[in-house]
């Protein structure tokens, strides 16, 4: 009996990365609000936020819902799989989100993402140094 209970409570935590595009109709504040909504959803449901990136307003390679630009935002988090489906349902229900993609990262993916972040941080540091020198 104990064994079965153990299996039931066993949690499979994976690293996920999700990018979504918001309509360009929103003001900066509204965009921030949307992002905050999803961030709250994730953290409330027990996801551990690892990283976040705001790409700002970007041109789309092809029009989506007759829009040619969009606000891109990226979340990287650790959570169980059932949270992803919940997140995607919320994406679909939200009119402000015009496109989204969630991927699970394999071990190479995690490695890559962490390396990239490190490089970026170092670059930013160097640039900061240069600026202070000048």
């Amino acid at each position: 009996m104990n064994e079965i209970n153990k299996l039931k409570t066993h949690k499979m935590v994976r690293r996920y990365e999700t990018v979504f595009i918001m309509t360009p109709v929103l003001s900066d504040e509204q965009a921030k609000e949307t992002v905050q909504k999803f961030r709250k959803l994730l953290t409330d449901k027990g996801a551990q936020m690892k990283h976040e990136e705001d790409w700002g307003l970007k041109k789309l390679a092809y029009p989506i819902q007759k829009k040619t630009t969009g606000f891109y935002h990226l979340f990287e988090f650790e959570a169980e799989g059932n949270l992803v489906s919940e997140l995607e349902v919320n994406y679909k229900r939200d009119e402000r989100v015009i496109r989204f993609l969630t991927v699970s990262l394999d071990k190479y993916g995690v490695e890559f993402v962490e390396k990239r972040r490190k490089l970026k941080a170092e670059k930013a540091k160097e640039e900061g140094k240069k600026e202070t020198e000048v």
Partner: protein
Amino acid sequence: MKMAQQGNDIRYLTPINIETKKKKYCRFKKARIRYIDYKDAEFLIKFVNDQGKILPRRITGTSTKFQKKISRAIKRARHLALLPFVTDLLK
């Protein structure tokens, strides 16, 4: 006059180029890249022709393993409108 005696066979001023086949190689195996990022459109553009179609392995020399990953990354990038599905003159 010696030349005329030898001159039966054809002579070239410049040595002719005999086309030697350059062996293609998988750049991911060579550079030890193990993960292909779908967010990096500038990199993925190398594996796409100017209509936005994915280039075959036969041309790029990528190994099967990485061709699969490349195509997946390109498809993801297309979904996020980082790469176009169809265009002309992409490059």
